[in-house]
């Protein structure tokens, strides 16, 4: 079971890195010659902050949206591991740890989907 978990994490990271690299190269091509400035904080545009917006951005070929998709994939990887752990504990009929994994998953989902 632990081997599959490790594999799962590895695949998630590989997939995300690939999307990240592709998005990054396209991003650099699209923005070449610009002067980056992150000294002063200005929030990223709304469209790059949630799942729907990111998907729309990809449809219109926005490289920044592709990078954000990679970020979402990356965040989803450990979440998937917790889901996997939960399933494993259900199969082992370990009630206490089913409860514990459910709490962890609920906290993760809250962080991700919480209302604005």
């Amino acid at each position, binding site marked *: 079971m632990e081997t599959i978990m490790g594999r799962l994490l590895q695949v998630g990271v590989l997939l995300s890195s690939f999307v990240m690299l592709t998005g990054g190269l396209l991003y650099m091509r699209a923005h070449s010659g610009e002067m980056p400035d992150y000294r002063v904080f200005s929030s990223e545009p709304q469209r790059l902050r949630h799942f729907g917006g990111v998907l729309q951005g990809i449809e219109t070929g926005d490289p920044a949206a592709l*990078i954000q998709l990679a970020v979402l994939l990356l965040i989803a990887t450990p979440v998937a591991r917790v889901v996997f752990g939960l399933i494993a504990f259900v199969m082992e009929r370990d009630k206490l*740890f089913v409860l514990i994994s459910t*709490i962890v998953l609920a906290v993760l989902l809250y962080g991700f989907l919480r209302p604005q």
Partner: protein
Amino acid sequence: MTLSIFTGLLFFGSLTAGLLGALTGLGGGVVLVPLLTVFFHVDIRYAIGVSLISVIATSSGAAAAYVREGFSSVRIGMFLEVATTLGAILGAYLATVVHTQALAIIFGLVLIYSAVVSWQQGKNPMPELKGGSRWSDKLELSGSYPDRDGKPCKYEVENIPGGFGLMFVAGTLSGLLGIGSGAVKVLAMDRVMKVPFKVSTTTSNFMIGVTAAASAGIYLHRGLVAPGLAFPVSLGVLAGSLIGARYLVRAKTAVLRTVFTMVVLALGVEMIVSGVTKWF
């Protein structure tokens, strides 16, 4: 500075941070945030957002290697993740109310503390095991890991409430500062719960990714993850930590470790000094 040069420098800077993190066992974030703020003049909130992402990448990337060795405890990890994820959510909320210069100062203090822990780890052997506890049996957290000869070596877990509480603190720091808080997690597991070193480091690595994921979503919603920073930094840190884990940890690193501990100390002092002078 044009975008390509900036991105290239960021990539190699992050690669170095990843290498340093793997070498000292502190994780990439602890070096990355000061690197971004001190050398690249990135706003600390952006630095924290992007650091969280790279922390997830490093943790998940290294996990496959750790799992193969079979030392990590899924049960201990999952149980303590209740504390770290709740702490991470709290930390992400605190980040909105804490002054940015105060963030820099807190970060500096954590850096200095991490350097001290890393220093001690290199010197002191792991503490001796004593008896277990009532909680350890109830939660079935006791386990075993293969020793040098491959024979299973049994262990039990002590002071679970204390470890749980410290993990909550570790999670809060993670959500507030965008770091893995490896140093605090190791303290909680090694010193307080007396989990054997081999088990605690690999389990802590697992937990770091889950903890960071809890607050990363909040940072993303707030627009604190800048794509232009995210791709060179996360790829750089990931590459650096993988190279570091594969080649440097096995090498004789006592001297390097000392040098890097000094670097981390210096960065900590720099962050505190600049935080204080800019604030007042």
